[in-house]
């Protein structure tokens, strides 16, 4: 069905097979993470999509941003039982131009899917990382999460800032604080493969 293509370059295959355990709030350990490594994140994270970013910029960040982790996610919450039904990642690129102030205030990791822009990568240099979580894996996420609280609930379920306690969320370092970026690497080698196939 598929043909082995020898991968897309060796740099991002690195990392401990078992993965690195991370606990929030994050500190300088974030700076030693490298693109391609597997991490398991335990502790508190905060969801934020487009509207939440705009609201936080205007009205303040409703949590201590130092070492905090922001998850690009609009969860499905069972409001009667106060539980998380589904919490897969949303496309992070929508937050490219909105997330700068969070990094400036000390947020040092974003979780999402699809990666972020070169501007964000530069902003993260020496300060933080982007962690990829598998698109569509909403049930797995929910099974490792507990709901703790909510800020800006008037934004609606998908856009509010939910405070979530997670237990070993399985993630991949996709953009690191030294400028490493899996997405850029893959896009570059895919373009090369395309040109080689269809000269």
């Amino acid at each position, binding site marked *: 069905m598929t043909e082995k293509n020898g991968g897309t370059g060796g740099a991002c295959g690195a990392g401990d097979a078992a993965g690195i355990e991370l606990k929030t709030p994050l500190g300088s350990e974030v700076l030693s993470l490298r693109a391609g490594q597997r991490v398991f994140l335990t502790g508190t994270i905060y969801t934020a999509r487009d509207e939440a970013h705009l609201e936080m910029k205007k009205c303040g960040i409703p949590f201590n941003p130092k070492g905090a982790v922001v998850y690009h996610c609009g969860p499905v919450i069972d409001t009667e039982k106060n539980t998380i039904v589904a919490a897969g990642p949303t496309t992070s690129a929508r937050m490219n131009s909105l997330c700068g102030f969070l990094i400036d205030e000390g947020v040092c990791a974003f979780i999402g899917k*699809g990666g972020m822009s070169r501007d964000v990568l530069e902003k993260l240099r020496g300060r933080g990382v982007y962690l990829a979580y598998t698109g569509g*894996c909403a049930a797995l996420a*929910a099974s490792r999460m507990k709901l703790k609280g909510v800020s800006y609930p008037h934004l609606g379920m998908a856009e509010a800032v939910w405070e979530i306690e997670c237990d070993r969320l399985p993630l991949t370092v996709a953009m690191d604080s030294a400028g490493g970026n899996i997405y850029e690497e893959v896009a570059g080698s895919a373009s090369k493969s395309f040109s080689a196939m269809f000269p």
Partner: protein
Amino acid sequence: MTELIRRRVADAAFEAIRLAELELPGDYLAALKNARSLESRDVAQREYENIFENLSDAKRLSVSICQDTGMHIFYVTVPEGFPMTRAISDGIRDGVIRATKEIPLRPNAVDPLTRKNSGDNVGVGAPAVHISIGDKFTVTAMPKGGGSENMSRMYMLLPSQTGDIKKIVTQTVLEAGGRPCPPLVLGIGIGGTFDSAPALAKEALLLPLDNMDEFEREICDSVNRLGIGPMGLGGDTTCIAVKVKKAHCHTASLPLAVNIQCWVNRHATVEVDTEGMFP
């Protein structure tokens, strides 16, 4: 009688949606497992780990596989001689409304211009219901996610471009990158008219995946050589399968449609209970 048809179709539609949202079809699941076994990259293997753990969690907890529970498309087959009644499409709508509340599903259907959400996944022209004649009275539900739909493309090629089809499909996936949540299934419609090529492409996604012909396999291999990999993080497996559906077209035209399906390749068929419907 029409009341009975409406009720039974609603039950079948509800059950088809439930099955589709919670569990992937057997042939696709086997192909996905095979892709995992062929994948050589660590980063990609971990994406598969998450994918398979997610599938078992969805089943165990009876929750949808993905939070994007899709736009709802139905294919209904009706036996020869059965009354073509509005009760069929009414029943489908009832089933969608019930599924939205009970499974539950995310309300995704909005007015295209005001962007106002209908709240129940039903609206003007939604769900889409395609009815054709078949051996049995069946309802097939196909909830389609927005991300992969957005990266799907339609091209009106020149008749002289038949040799470029593989290149154009590969380029479509290159430009999509990780955005449609690979590994993918590609439904390809070739021929027909401007409107029918995308319809063929969507129907192609319902074909069994275990018997790709040489042309389909060639396209699949070409896409996999891009190395985009699961979720665009790099890997040998970008495309699980390619299925093509053709129709005769105008001698001046070559319509080509590529319908991209994300790894959550959902569809399920349920037979309508017809007891008491036939004299």
